[in-house]
């Protein structure tokens, strides 16, 4: 049934928002409207993909994070770092130096989020073997995609792979290791350094899990700024991080496009970009893709290298990571690599906890719980849609004439919100009523300016 407890990481800063409609038109789930001259988000429809944040011309859309000072509530403070964080830095900056600088910010440990990949590769392939009746299986890696399916493609919810993402496996593994070293859970703070809003939402209200092993989230861009300026100032000329386990190339590039699909035994495909993903999900629904075993879908162009909180150009980040992956091979030849044992020692435990529960569809598109009422509403929506001008100008505060028609029928907007309807009536009636209506959408300020007062 409908789940209303979803956490969203995207926030609109009302003081900054100029109500320009850019975000509204970019939203793939029609979750935004303009009211009182400000963008307003419908929480039941938002999937935290962050497309709105990309197009906002005044930075009025932001991603909330946990207060950095919160980490000091914990004795053990772990930065769970995704490989795309390392990809932000030029190749000549050694990974250990980056980690040193993260520790200087107050963390006690730095762990890579992708160490779970090795276990996952085998788990995914046996999952595919055991679920031959479901094709294609859709990756659960990108939380924005999982939510998109829940909201817009409810009949594909059963195609989602019910296995944890690498960061959750890694968090679980490190939590266990620390427990074994004698630390209680309330002494351990695991903070994920996130490249996107979707991962925050996934940590705060996980899909298919009761709670996450991760304590909180820190924005990748904010940590990058701290780390980069400290490296630039050479504050940490000495390296305080000991030689440690290194990410293998496959782990390093897992979050890039094709990172998962390459390891699938069988036919697979990797798709990035939210609109490409939507187009493909439509095809899967039609049943015309059932000869594929596995589809990797990522909301961001260039996958996590292009996350909305990635601090650098997505193509550069991706290229730098691939180059670092090549370096690994050279280092290995020279015997300079330390392999990860922590995860391998815990394989059995992690495999026991790798599954997530069934992913439930959400009612993002539903007009009414009652089908009869929904049918009546749909009929009305069609009538209104035919009546409206069909130019999708957004002056009504809705992204298209069709969405305005839906809003009208759902009681969330008025026919008079349409300036063309107003114009038609205005020729006969006094205009005061229309002005009131326009003020409700655009606020007094914009309209006064137009009126020259």
């Amino acid at each position, binding site marked *: 049934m409908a789940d209303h407890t979803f956490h969203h990481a995207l926030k609109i800063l009302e003081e900054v928002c100029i109500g320009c409609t850019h975000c509204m038109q970019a939203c793939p789930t029609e979750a935004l409207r303009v009211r009182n001259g400000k963008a307003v988000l419908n929480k039941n429809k938002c999937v935290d993909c962050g497309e709105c944040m990309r197009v906002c011309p005044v930075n009025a859309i932001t991603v909330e994070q946990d207060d950095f000072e919160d980490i000091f509530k914990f004795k053990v403070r772990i930065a769970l770092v995704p490989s795309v964080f390392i990809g932000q830095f030029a190749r000549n900056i050694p990974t250990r130096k980056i980690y040193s600088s993260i520790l200087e910010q107050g963390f006690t440990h730095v762990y890579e989020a992708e160490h779970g990949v090795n276990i996952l590769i085998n788990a995914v392939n046996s999952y595919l073997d055991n679920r031959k009746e479901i094709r294609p299986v859709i990756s659960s890696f990108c939380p924005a995609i999982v939510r998109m399916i829940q909201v817009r493609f409810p009949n594909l919810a*059963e195609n989602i792979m019910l296995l944890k993402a690498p960061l959750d496996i890694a968090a679980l593994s490190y939590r266990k290791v620390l427990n074994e070293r004698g630390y209680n859970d309330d002494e351990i703070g695991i903070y994920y350094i996130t490249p996107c809003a979707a991962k925050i939402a996934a940590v705060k209200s996980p899909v298919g899990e009761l709670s996450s092993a991760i304590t909180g989230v820190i924005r990748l861009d904010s940590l990058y700024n701290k780390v980069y300026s400290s490296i630039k100032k050479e504050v940490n000329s000495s390296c305080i991080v000991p030689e440690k386990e290194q990410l293998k190339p496959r782990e390093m590039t897992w979050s890039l496009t094709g990172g998962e699909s390459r390891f699938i035994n069988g036919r697979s495909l990797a798709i990035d970009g939210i609109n490409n993903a939507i187009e493909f999900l439509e095809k899967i*629904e039609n049943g015309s893709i059932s000869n594929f075993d596995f589809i990797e879908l990522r909301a961001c162009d260039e996958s996590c290298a292009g996350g909305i909180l990635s601090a650098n150009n997505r193509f550069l980040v991706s290229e730098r990571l691939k180059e670092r992956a090549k370096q690994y091979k050279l280092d290995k030849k020279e015997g300079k690599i330390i392999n990860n044992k922590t995860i391998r020692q815990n394989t059995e435990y992690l495999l026991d906890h790798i599954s997530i529960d069934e992913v439930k569809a959400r009612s993002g598109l539903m007009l009414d719980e*009652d089908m*009869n009422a929904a049918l009546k509403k*749909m009929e009305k929506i069609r009538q209104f849609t035919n009546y409206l001008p069909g130019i999708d100008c957004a002056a009504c505060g809705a992204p298209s004439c069709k969405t305005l028609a839906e809003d009208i029928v759902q009681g969330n907007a008025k026919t008079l919100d349409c300036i063309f309807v107003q114009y038609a009536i205005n020729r006969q009636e006094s205009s005061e009523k229309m002005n009131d209506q326009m003020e409700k959408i655009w606020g007094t300020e914009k309209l006064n300016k137009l009126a020259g007062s």
Partner: protein
Amino acid sequence: MHAQYEIQGGDFTKAGLASSEVKKMLKQLNLDPKIIKRIAVAMYEAEVNVVAHAYHGIMDIELNTEKIIIKVQDTGPGIADIDKAMEEGFSTASKEVREMGFGAGMGLPNIKKNADELILNSKINKGTEVKLVFYLNHQ
């Protein structure tokens, strides 16, 4: 509730558009996702058959709380041997059509598998009518 969509024969780039519109409608009605899945597959195959084998078609949707009736009517060559056409793997699709990923001969069998009722009428050199019925026996 009643709606109609046009299907253009031969235009493979637009194959699936009508089905897409209907799918959007169905999702707004709080139907069981499993039924939507069956409807989506059957409807898409019927639409693709018009694109692949006929000249022009209309998809007609009739919908109430009990059932949905989808009629796909086309002007086209018609089907000479319906029993044969219903066989898995039977296809008269040209090499070009196959190369575009259509014409595996599974369309009609898949429609039959997914629809609660399938009624097929065809007249040679006139056209074909595929009528699909789905019962929405939601609890």
